[in-house]
């Protein structure tokens, strides 16, 4: 009976490669903490205008509901009625003055990443201090920069830049790197020879110099330009890894089988090989995100970032440089933000590496 029962019991469903990898990743406390930190940053980036800003999240004005804070995402999403009615970005007083019946739901912190909050802008509240007087305080948690812009507001809104630069640039790098690596690795022959030389050629060019040259050529630099530039200069490592993985995998039996079944080359490359090659490729992409954040901060620090006002963490660091002995808060807070974010991505990358590479598993004895 027992044997029969054992025989009839269905075997437990396999968690699959990704399921197992996730299982292993979860066991790594540092990796998970880093993952949670990145999720937290994503939330901060997404809801930045609701966390800190000087425009109401939602308000009722002259009988209608508006969402002025959306203007932080896209300028035209802020209803033009406020410009026509000459609000001039000062909502607290003007809402009451122009419509006593109005009400508003405000961001958690009344500060602005793009300008200095002036005296009495919020009734009874002093303006932001400037120069070296902007120490951290109850009104400016992380202090203010030399022209009185709130550091906390810039850090929160700067999260959008840091994360989007990381994600988008490495998405671009991933697409380029995987495509070139896949073609070189799978097709081999002269294609491999040519593409490998292209990879080596790009690797020979110092990326920062190339980035600076590309930025200098642009008439108007935006964060999207920076993302694209970082993306198109950071794909070589991914391409080499992808090439190696594709070379290895194309010899496997399941690929031979797919080929025997008449699958097209593209189908084999991107449906069968890529799926299995993705795990190791994700690791350099994760490290690449950290590197991209550092590059963007570095460019902003050097003054080659997006056009001002640009609440990037690197720009904040740069503003702290001019009076480094007095304005420590301009170095410590953005520096910590950059450090923690880069560390988080590196820990995630390391965790992914160990979770997906059987040779590195701590439990693989």
């Amino acid at each position, binding site marked *: 009976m027992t044997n029969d029962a054992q025989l009839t019991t269905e075997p437990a469903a396999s968690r699959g490669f990704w399921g197992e990898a996730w299982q292993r990743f979860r066991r790594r406390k540092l990796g998970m903490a880093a993952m949670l930190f990145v999720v937290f940053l994503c939330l901060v980036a997404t809801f930045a205008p609701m966390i800190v800003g000087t425009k109401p999240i939602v308000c009722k004005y002259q009988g209608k509901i508006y969402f002025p804070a959306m*203007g932080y995402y896209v*300028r*035209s999403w*802020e209803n*033009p009625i406020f*410009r*026509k009615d*000459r609000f*001039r*970005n000062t909502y607290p007083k003007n809402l009451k003055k122009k419509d006593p019946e109005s009400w508003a739901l405000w961001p958690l912190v009344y500060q602005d990443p*793009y*300008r*200095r909050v*002036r005296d009495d802008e919020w009734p009874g509240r002093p303006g932001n201090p*400037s*120069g*070296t007087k902007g120490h951290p305080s109850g009104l400016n948690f992380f202090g203010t920069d*030399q*022209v*009185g812009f709130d550091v906390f507001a810039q850090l929160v809104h700067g999260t959008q830049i840091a994360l989007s630069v990381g994600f988008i640039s490495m998405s671009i790098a991933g697409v380029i790197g995987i495509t070139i690596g896949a073609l070189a690795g799978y097709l081999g022959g002269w294609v491999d020879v040519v593409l490998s030389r292209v990879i080596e050629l790009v690797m020979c060019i110092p990326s920062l110099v190339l980035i600076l040259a590309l930025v*200098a050529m642009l*008439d*108007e630099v935006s964060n999207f330009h920076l993302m694209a530039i970082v993306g198109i200069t950071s794909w070589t490592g991914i391409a080499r890894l992808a090439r190696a993985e594709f070379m290895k995998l194309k010899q496997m039996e399941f690929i031979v089988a797919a080929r025997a079944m008449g699958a097209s080359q593209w189908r084999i490359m991107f449906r069968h090989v890529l799926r299995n090659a993705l795990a190791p490729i994700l690791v350099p992409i994760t490290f690449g995100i950290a590197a991209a954040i550092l590059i963007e901060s570095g460019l902003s620090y050097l*003054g080659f970032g997006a*056009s*001002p*006002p640009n609440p990037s963490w690197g720009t904040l660091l740069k*503003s702290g*440089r*001019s*009076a*480094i*002995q*007095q304005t420590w808060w301009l170095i410590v807070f953005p520096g910590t933000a950059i450090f923690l974010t880069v560390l988080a991505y590196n820990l995630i990358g390391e965790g992914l590496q160990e979770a997906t590479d059987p040779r590195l598993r701590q439990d693989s004895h």
Partner: protein
Amino acid sequence: MHANSRIVLFLIVCTSTFWFGCSSEKATEQVESGAGSAGEAVSDSESTEQLVKTFVLGDLIEPFDPPSLEEIDKLAEWVDQPVLDGMELMRKEQAEEGPAELSVAEALELRNNSDEDNEKLIHALGRLAAPEGSGVDYGTTFVREAQGDLKSSNPLLFSAAMDGEFSELTGVSLFGFDRHFTPFASKDAVVSWQTSKDRLMDKLVLRDDLTWSDGKPITAHDVEFSFKVILSDSVPIPAVRSGTVELKYVKAYDDRTLVIFHKEALATNVWNMLFPFIPKHIYEKSLAEDPTMTRSDYHSKLEDHPVVGGAYKMKKRVRGQEFVVERREEYYLHNGKQVRMKPYFKQIRFKVIEDPNTALLALKAGSIDDHRISPEQWESQTDDEDFYKNNTKNTTLGWDSYYFCWNFKTPFFGDKRVRHAMSYAMDYDEMLSTIFHDMYQPSRGTFHPTSWMFPKHEPPQPFQQDLDKAEDLLDEAGWEDSDGDGVRDKMVDGKRVPFRFSLLVHQRPDAIKVGTLLKECLDQIGVECLVKPTEFTVWVEKNRTKAFQASMGVWGTGADPGSQENIFGTGKGRNSGGYSNPEVDNFFRQALLEFDREKRGEIYGEITKLMWEDQPYTWLLYRNSFYGFNKRLRGYTFSPRGPYGFSPGIFGIYKAVLSP
């Protein structure tokens, strides 16, 4: 020992541009003295053309057969002009001011916390040394901050701030001007200066005890030769050609007698004569082979070991790091006899430090002896023991002018109402208090209120931010947000044009901050402004070619207002915005023909008022000078340009002998 005025003019402007980041190369004077980095850009393109151009000495000079000296003397009724020494003038001025309130020892203990303290410090420490040089440590080195590297040691090729500094120290100048910008012939180089009554000729007799550093005498032929080199088409002269080109001819009748012929009798003739000169015997044969004066081996060697005629000569040059000049004993000694004042320093070392924060640290550490302090540093980083241990600091009123220039060719700024709206939109109080810590003065036009050119009756008053007025003006001009995207727009030539423009600013932090403030202000009235920090040479080139919509800059302090015509006159070289007002043009012309300073001042006053009404620029502020000096330094005096760039300027500064 007068500064070479043109170089100095240039230097000041360049210094301001490099320092503040957003200047054009010349202010009013820069027109006279040529182009700074713009010149570099020009020279590059020109130099390409040199490959196919044949060198013909003085081919840009209009044909002119100078009469003999006898004929000239017979025809001209000569009027004597002043031949002076800037040091003597300054000593006289200081004597009239009376004794300093504080002794040197007391001044060195005093911290500069108020205007009164500042005055006391300048009076006590700015005293020139006695004529016999007592108390001067002649064996010491003055280590100066250089905000950029020396680009050329050839005074005809100067194009950067440090080139001007070098030329001032190593060159001979026939003319100089004092801190009130009054010109005179330099006693160190000239015996007499006469002007013909019709003001079309100037006759100078040079001293016979001037020598080049290779021992050859400096003669009037060197001056004539240099004039012809400057006006040779194939020689890529970046800066000094403008102004000099206004001269008709320069003729050396013998080794010492020089006559300068003018095309017209103009009030600015004296400034046009301020060009540097080079040794004829060194260059006359080599120019045909290499008109660029830079490419051949011979010229390359001269670049590092130039033959100079001034108080100092090149001692050492490490590109990108420093250059050192050394006192020429043969400058002040002639046949063993002292014929000029002995220059105060054995050496002057220029250390290249581009970052102001590093420079301040170097000053505090005693590695450099002077540093141009930023308002921010003045306020928060130079008031502690760390600074006052080795240094003291001074400030003076400056005339350098910050502005936004509006390009009339764009669909936006041809309309006076729009330009006024821009001027009303700017938050001047915020700019002055937050960005410049209340250390600069609000602008009232192109001339400074304390200058003789500023209108005395109904002078312009500074703009105050008035966003309602700005919006009304924009509405009136037809700029309204018709599509509800938050940005004003207007139908121009059948197309809807949004009011969205870019503002070129230099990559200096303060320029970016001012640009960002304008952006914030305009954002409130539905105008979108993109602030574009731009590298200096690109900035200059874009302004030169008018390839911009709006541009922020700073004009340096001009010695004579005549050069403003080149900035605001219709179709003139530095009129980047394309401003044109025939009435203003007429006044500029009238002012050139008027020799009475008071009457000239009234004409420039009218120009100021007309331009204030037209607002081709939004004038922002006048910049003051802030300097930190090592406590051993004495004799620094100030003009509206700061402590350098006039006579005596750097030649009055010395290090006191250390007490035993």
